[in-house]
């Protein structure tokens, strides 16, 4: 921006000579021929870097004009150089008003002195301006920062509050969940009694009225008995699910291969009937609740046998994948895969099948309560792990049980289990 200088002198020749002296500096001049005119100009324009003013002017002299100028806050920062006659000692007259930015030039004007003084003042003025601007900027930045800090604090508090609320919600949800489990437990427990009676009396009726049995048609009482039996399995499974969360979370190091072998031994008749082949790879020692994990594997293996493809002997393979926990030696992550070659299902049902009472095959031929996989999921979650399924129609299904971080267990030296055990 061009530096603006206000020249005030009642004599135009003086104005012209000053202008001529300062011209090479490239300043922009605004000229006034009286104090009044100068004040008028200053009403509209404040951005002068310097005022050069003759002291001796008719009506309003230089000092009076200056005191009027300096009454206005907006103008107080503009330095004034008074041009005065050498011999009057005028320099003391304006003392009361000066704020440091006042100087005197004596007539006859020495062009070098004028140029020097003007340039010093202009420079001073510009520096002050710059400083002020800087200060303004700093203040603004400061304000902004303060605002930002406050905002951040506010949002932090908000986050904290939200977190608190979330924690409360979680606590509440957990309590509700427990209550639900308790409810399911009590309800199903109490439902069992009357149901047992229904079964008993229906069966008693059949036993004591044997002649009805000769009827080829499945008689009504038998249907009652069967329905009651089915209902009882449902209730038994609901009870089992409701009871999962009541089991201890103190997990014990478990030889998974022994556990699975025990299950296979229990199920050997089913396995034999289906001409199934079960291949179990080496699975590491894991911290689990052995009772619950047995239920989980029994369900998965049972499903694999149940959903075999017609005419294809079931092949079930169980293997584990182990990966280090966050690249450290603090433990490992273990995933166990249970794969079959059965009828499979559309992958879009992969989540749905873990829901309660979900049966993708409403076929009466395939027995089940629709709770087996819900139970598996509950057991996986009780272990703070998860279970998922990958499947394709007619391509078989793979269930993946993921357990959370396992600490490395120092194994007592024992003769190693037979790997790749095949049971047929």
């Amino acid at each position: 921006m061009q530096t603006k200088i206000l020249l005030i002198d009642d004599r135009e020749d003086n104005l012209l000579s000053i202008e001529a002296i300062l011209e090479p500096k490239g300043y922009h001049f605004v000229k006034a021929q009286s104090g009044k005119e100068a004040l008028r100009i200053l009403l509209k324009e404040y951005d002068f870097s310097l005022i050069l003013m003759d002291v001796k002017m008719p009506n309003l002299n230089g000092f009076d004009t200056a005191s009027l100028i300096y009454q206005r806050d907006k103008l107080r920062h503009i330095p004034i150089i008074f041009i005065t006659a050498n011999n009057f000692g005028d320099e003391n007259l304006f003392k009361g008003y000066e704020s440091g930015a006042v100087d005197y030039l004596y007539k006859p004007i020495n062009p070098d002195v004028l140029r020097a003084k003007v340039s010093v003042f202009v420079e001073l003025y510009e520096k002050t301006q710059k400083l002020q601007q800087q200060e303004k900027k700093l203040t603004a930045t400061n304000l902004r920062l303060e605002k930002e800090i406050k905002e951040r604090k506010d949002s932090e508090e908000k986050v904290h509050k939200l977190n608190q609320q979330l924690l409360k919600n979680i606590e509440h949800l957990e309590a509700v969940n427990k209550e639900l489990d308790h409810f399911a437990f009590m309800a199903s427990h109490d439902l069992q009694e009357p149901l047992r009676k229904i079964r008993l009396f229906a069966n008693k009726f059949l036993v004591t009225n044997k002649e009805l049995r000769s009827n080829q048609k499945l008689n009504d009482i038998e249907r009652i008995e069967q329905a009651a039996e089915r209902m009882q399995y449902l209730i038994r499974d609901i009870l089992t699910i409701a009871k999962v969360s009541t089991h201890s979370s103190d997990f014990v190091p478990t030889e998974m291969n022994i556990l699975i072998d025990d299950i296979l031994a229990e199920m050997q008749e089913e396995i034999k009937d289906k001409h199934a082949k079960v291949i179990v790879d080496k699975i590491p020692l894991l911290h689990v609740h052995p009772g619950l994990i047995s239920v989980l594997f029994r369900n998965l293996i049972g499903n694999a046998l149940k959903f075999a493809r017609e005419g294809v002997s079931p092949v079930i393979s169980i293997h584990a994948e182990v990966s280090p926990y966050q690249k450290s030696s603090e433990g490992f992550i273990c995933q166990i895969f249970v794969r079959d070659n059965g009828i499979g299902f559309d992958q879009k049902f992969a989540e749905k099948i873990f829901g309660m009472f979900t049966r993708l095959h409403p076929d009466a031929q395939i027995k089940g309560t629709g709770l087996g996989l819900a139970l598996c999921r509950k057991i996986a979650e009780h272990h703070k792990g998860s279970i998922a399924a990958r499947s394709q129609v007619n391509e078989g299904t793979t269930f993946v049980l993921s357990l959370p971080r396992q600490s490395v267990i120092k194994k007592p030296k024992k003769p190693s289990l037979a790997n790749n055990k095949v049971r047929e």
Partner: protein
Amino acid sequence: MPYISCLGKVCLYYFLIFHQTSKMIPENLRIIIADDDVDDQSLLTDALIANGIGREMIVLVSNGEELSGIVHGYSKFPSIIFLDLNMPKKNGLKVLAEIKGDPNLKHMPVLIFTTSTSPVDIASCYELGANTYFTKPFSYSDLISLVQTIKTYWFEMGVLPRSIFSR
């Protein structure tokens, strides 16, 4: 049945029974059923009758307190108790402890007959001296065969004791 011969007076008693019923169930046998559930009472009663046990041999009580009240009177009979665990007033475990802690009663066989499958219940019953723990079957035919087994084991093949103190 060679073992009968060594039982002295009982030998004669059993001999008579043998001739009377052609089975070996003592005629003064008392089967005490302690169960608050009338359905279970009647089902077990019917299953016993279906197995040839006389109705007069069956004594029904519906809670632990009632059982405590009458059990002394039966200690002189060859008797056996079917005891439910979950009963009002005095539960099965309490009566069981009472009976097995009483020198005049502890000879009486107590068969636990309950819906509970809790390992804790099973363990505590045996610890207190229960003779066998049964869970109530879910079908009447199972109940019949269970009663049949009990009858064969306890009444026909086994010999029930009688109190030698009272009377």
